[in-house]
Every structure is written in C-alpha cells, then in structure tokens.
C-alpha cells in the first residue's frame, strides 16, 4: 500500500469540491429584482418595461413623483398601472380615479413625471389556458380557479388573475349608458384589475376582464347586486389564468409543474407544453 502524496490529496479535494458544488447547487433559481427606478426623461424605457411586465403577468405598483400640469402642484402617489402607451401610461389611484401620466416634457397627459419607481410584487408567474365551461355561480367559478391552481401553494401564491369573458343571464335593457355606468362602478371599486368592460344584450350581460385578481373579482356579484343585477349561473370563455407567486419557482420546478398539469389537470387546463408559460 502506497502512502498518499500531495497528488492524492489534490484528487480527494477535487472529489470533495465537486460534491460540495453539487449539494450547494441551486438549480438555476434567479435572483428577483424587485424595484426599478426611472427618471421622467426615461418614460419610454419605463413604459416599455411596464408593457413587458404586463405581457408576462407580473403584478407591480408604480410610485410616481411629478406635477399636475393643470396647476403645477406636486403629485406623489402610488397606484396600479392599468394601461401603457408610447411614452405615457394610465395610473389607477387608490381612490379609484384614473390619471394619465407622461414624461417630464409631456403636455397631453395630466401629470408630468419626474420619477417613476416600479415595485414588483411577484416573484414568479405561471400562465395557463383554462377551458371554457358553465358554473352554477360566479363564486363557484372563482372557487374552481382557486382549487385548480392550489397545487402551486408550495410557492406561496400571492393571488390568481384571470383574463377572459364571463356571461350570465340578466334582466337588462341593452344600453351603452348602462354599460358605461357599470364599467365606471366596477373600475372605481376594483383595484388590481387591468381592465373590465361590460356589454349588455337582450338576454344578459358579458363582462370582459383583463388580469383581474380573484380577491378583487369576488366583490363583483355584490357590486352588480347594488345596481339590481343578480348574477346567476355563469358561462366563462377560454380564460388565461395567471398564478402569481411570492416564492421563486426554480428552473427545475418548471418541468414538475407542466407534468402535474398534464397528468392531473388536463381536463380543466390546456396541458400542451407550449400553452403553459412559467416566468421566473
């Protein structure tokens, strides 16, 4: 038996190092940047990034510092971005009012921003297509969405948002005025909802929802009831379900999520690999 030399020690060190690097490997979990800062002159950069976050389904708040162009008074508020354009965006204030914000040299918008801070609230997002179906009530629909996505609870679900149309029978006379009144009411009362439009037909009402969170949408039946409209059984179109998590989904978890949907939820969600998007 030979006595170990320094070369044997080096080989043993390589072995230990490789095992250590394996045990400490995080399998590609990204570090989430949770805040972005832009000056008013960087409005195009800011709106581009907002559009990017919206398209991926991430939830974020915007903190704006600037001036009202009407009276040059300071504007300093946080709000929810509900629409983005070329160099401007619409901000939903906590009061339910919507204001338009432009850059430092803007003149068309209500507010000229000098600072824009985007606070990202979501770590990861899972987006899937949920098949259309009828439900006994709107609450049942929301409960089904919640149950369907509950397998992601281990990543601490922040909230689930949906984009789709909900139709239900109602005694209502088709009228643009009624639609506008209902839209105004819902817009003012629902916060984390990008957009909600109402269309009335002789047989009922259709709500088109864009990225509305389940928590916010739970209030819809009561809000409509306050206007004398009862939501009975609903039919929901194919909807995009966006699950926003507080915990970070790892690179390797993606495969497990897709497999789970294919094995367990294929009758509710589109299990095609390309129909499920997981943003880390």
């Amino acid at each position, binding site marked *: 038996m*030979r006595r170990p030399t320094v070369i044997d020690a080096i*080989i043993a060190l390589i072995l230990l190092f490789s095992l250590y690097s394996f045990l400490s490997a995080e*399998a*590609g979990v990204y570090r989430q940047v949770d805040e972005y800062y832009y000056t008013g002159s960087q409005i195009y950069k800011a709106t581009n990034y907002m559009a990017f976050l919206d398209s991926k389904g991430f939830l974020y708040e915007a903190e704006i510092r600037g001036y009202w162009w009407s009276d040059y008074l300071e504007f300093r508020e946080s709000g929810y971005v509900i629409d983005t354009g070329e160099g401007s965006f619409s901000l939903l204030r906590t009061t339910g009012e919507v204001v338009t914000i432009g850059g430092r040299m803007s003149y068309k918008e209500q507010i000229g921003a000098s600072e824009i801070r985007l606070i990202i609230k979501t770590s990861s997002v899972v987006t899937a297509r949920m098949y259309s179906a009828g439900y006994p009530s709107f609450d049942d629909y929301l409960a089904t969405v919640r149950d369907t996505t509950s397998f992601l609870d281990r990543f601490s679900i922040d909230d689930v948002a949906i984009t789709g149309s909900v139709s239900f029978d109602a005694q209502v006379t088709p009228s643009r005025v009624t639609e506008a009144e209902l839209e105004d009411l819902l817009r003012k009362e629902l916060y984390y909802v990008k957009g909600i439009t109402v269309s009335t037909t002789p047989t009922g009402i259709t709500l088109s929802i864009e990225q509305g969170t389940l928590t916010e949408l739970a209030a819809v039946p009561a809000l409509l009831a306050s206007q004398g409209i009862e939501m009975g059984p609903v039919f929901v179109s194919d909807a995009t379900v966006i699950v926003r998590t507080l915990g970070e989904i790892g690179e390797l978890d993606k495969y497990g999520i897709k497999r789970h949907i294919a094995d367990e939820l294929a009758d509710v969600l589109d299990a095609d690999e390309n129909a499920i998007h997981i943003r880390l």
Partner: protein
Amino acid sequence: MLEQPLVAALNAALGSVARLRGAPARRIDPERARMWGVRDLGRWCGSAVDAVLGYLDTATERSASRAAAMRMIAAGERRLPGIPLFGTSATDSTIGARLTHPLIFVVAFIAFLGLSDHGVSAFAFWSLAASLAAFGVGVYAARWRLPAVPDRAIWVAGAGLALAGALVPLVGADVATKLSLLPLAVLILSGKTGMWASAGAAALGYTFFTQGQITYGAPYLALGVAGAAHNYRSPRLSGLLGRHAAFLSVVLMAVGTLYWVLAIALVGRIPLLTTREGLSPLFVMRSHLLPIGAILFISVMGERASRQGTHAQARTLSVLALSFSLLLMALLGYRTQVLLTLLGGIIAMVYWQLVSTREVIASGAALAALFGVMTVFRTLTTGAHVGVLESLSVRTGLTLDIYDMMASLGGYTGFTKGQAYLASITDYATLMPGLAYAPRRYVAVYAGARGISMTSTLLGPLALDFGLLGSVAAMSLLGWMTARTKGLVSAVTGGQRSIVVALYALILAYLILGIETGLVDYEVLLLFGGTFLYMLHLRRVSQHT
C-alpha cells in the same frame, strides 16, 4: 539596471490611469524596488518554480492514484482482446495524411459554403476568401524559422519603446499602445531580454487590466504571457506533463465523468430524450473534460503501442474510451461534443496508426449519420418539422447571412473592438448591460434579434470585433498555430508527443466544428490559448534539449 525602466513603466501606467480617473496617482518607490533586486527576484522565482515542479513530479510518481490508474490501464492491455486492423493503416496512405492536414479546415469551410442555398454580398465573399487565404498563408509560414534577434535590434527596440511612451501626450494612449507592441515583440523574441520583457509586459498589462483599462491591458498581458511561455526554457513543466500523460488522461476522464453524473443528477432526466433546459452550464462545462481526456487517452495508448508494438490492445482501449465518451456526451444532448469526440478521436487514432483508411471513411459516414440522427431527435423534441437536408441548407444559409451582416458592420477595422469575445467571460459580459451575456447572443443583437443566440461562422465574431483586417490577422495566426503544433509532433518524444498529438487533434476538430458555431466558448478559447502557450514553450524546450 532593470529595476529603473520597469518601475518607471509601471509608474507611467499607474499615472495615466490616475489621470483618466481624475484620482491621485499611486506610485512605486524606485528605491524600494532596487532594494528587492528584480534580477535576483526573477532568478529566485525561476528556481522556486522548478523546485515545485520537481516536487510535484516525484509526488505524482509515488501517488496511489497514479499507481491505480496505471494498474487499470495495464490490466486493460493484458486482459482485453485486441481488435485487428481492417485494411491498411491510414497513416501509410495519403488519404489519412491529407485528412489530418491543417488545410482540411479550408476544405471543410468551402464545403460548408456549398451547403447554403443562396449567396452572400461581395464584401462578405472577399472577406471569406481573404480570411481563408490568410489561414493557408499561416500554415505555410509555420515552416519558417524565426531569425534570432541581433543585439543591435534590442537597443533599437528599446528606443522605440521609449519613443512610444514619450508619444503618449501627443498621440494618446491608444495609438501609443499600438506603436509600442512591435518593439516590445522584438524585445520578447530576443534571447537576452525575452523573459524580462515578457515579465514587464505582463506586469504592465496586469496593472492596466486590474485598473479597468482592458483595451490597453489586454495586448500587453497577451504578449507578456505568450512571451513568458516562449522564453521559459526549463524542461520541468513539459517533462512533468509528458511523464504523467497517461495519468492525466485518466484524471481528466474521471473528473469529466463525475461532473456528467452530477449534471444529470441535478436535472433528474436524460437531456437527449427530453430537453437540455435546466442543465447547469458549470457542470456541463466541467463534464467536457471527458472528451478531452478520452482523446488524450487514445493518444497515450497510441504512443505506448508505437513503443511496445501492442497496437491491437491499444485499439481496443481507444475504441472503449471513445465509445464511452461518445455515449455520455450524446446522452447529454450536445452534438458539438459528440462530433468533437469522434473527430478528435479519429485524428488521434490516424496519427498513431490505430485505424485504417477504410475505417476512417466508415467513421466519416457514421459521423454524418450520427449528426443526422441527432438533428432528427432535436427536431422531434423541439417540434420543428424540417427535414435533415433542408435543415442543413437553411441553417448554413442563415449562418452565412448573419456573417454577411457582421462583415458589413465590422468593415475593415471592426465595430465592437473585442467586446463580443469578451462576452465569453461571464463576469465581463455584464460590462455590456442589456446587450450580451454570451458572444452568440451579442451577435444576435447586432443581427436584429434579442434574447436568442445566433451562429455566424468562425469568422462572424472576428469580423464584428476586428473587421476584415482583424479576421485576416487572426486566421493567419490560427493557421500558423495549427501547423506549428502539427510540426511539433515530430520534434518531441514519449508522453510529450502524445500530449501534442491530442492537442492537435482537439484544435483541428474544434476548428472544423467551429466553422458553423464559431470559436467563442470560454472553454474552447481556454483550450486554444493553452495549446498556443504549450506549443510556444515546448518548441523552445525542444530546441534547447
């Protein structure tokens, strides 16, 4: 005497960096440097390095791991049945010699161009022609022996260096750096001042580099390190590697296999049958030591066979090592590594007469078939419905189109001045936020795409970074290096020869495979850089022993 110019140069470098930053300059005291005695320090360092290498040599010789590796090889040679040669040895025929000639790269490049279904612009065509011709000139120039630098030239070069330094306030640091490279190269090539000039250039380059002045630091550092390899005449390092080449090959294979297992364990599936997504790049890069080790192992077996006449046994062990490496790399889903193993392995086997001409042709067909099968697998897993031939033609056309864009963007002197290559080092890639996190992604950005990587032939990144002139210079250097490495095979013996053959097989295989993908991966650049330095050092050692 040497302390003063060295300290003056370092102080000038620190001073110019401080001026650029607008910060107070940090200076080295010449008195303290004289106290150290740079010449004595250099000699002491040389002896210390030799002593460490001598100790490592003895430690390796007596190590239990080496003994186990050698016992394993001996057992394989003794117990495994030998495979007879089908046909005559490839080295005996002209086909074998031609297939492993450096100019096979030019032939393969022209064949690649022929696969495209459409042409390129006139400028891209002439750039391609000039670059390939430069490679040929480099191969031819490798036959020339560099003349010794006369003593008179040392003083002229010294004066030139001083003049370049003096010109800094007039022409700026950028031009002065370029002007100083030629006299510096003369000093490095001189037998008298070579090592000192190399050490000085490396120290200067390092100083600039660590101060964030990469543009000035990189040429000095590269010249200094290459000069040090050229001027380091002690046979200790090459002797150590040569004596323990067999052990080294087993260690490389073992470490590569270990990381292959860990990479697979981390994702918990076979990437070839599913997807490569999620694989740890670090573990995959380390697992690439397996093909390198396998090719070195084949070369070592060939060298042993040429001494002991055990060709049949060497063939068996070589085929086993090759198959093992091929299988593992194929399961990982990396076509390039599979082809590298096959191509490099065959080149090494041709050199050591472990394969016949008939077998080389059969392997070539297998190579094409394997590429086709793996492409089909990839198209199946990615869901792209394209035929093999159509896929080849479209891919080649697209790659050449991107090269066309890069050539046009780079013009004659380059556009990005080295940033695309710098992006191969992850830490430096972040210097260009939002643009590049890898050279091929960098190329893709300039081709109008974002978030994906694009190949632009071996010449694409060169054209983007350094333009037509840079491409010609780099290709002639590549040709010179490849031919010089091949020429070195007959100049050395034993284990050193097996290492040189393995390195030649690897760089030739990478060159051929890099025609489409480019030589921009960190590990590949390291391999080429290492081979270049080892070739310079070994040539100098072989001239003095």
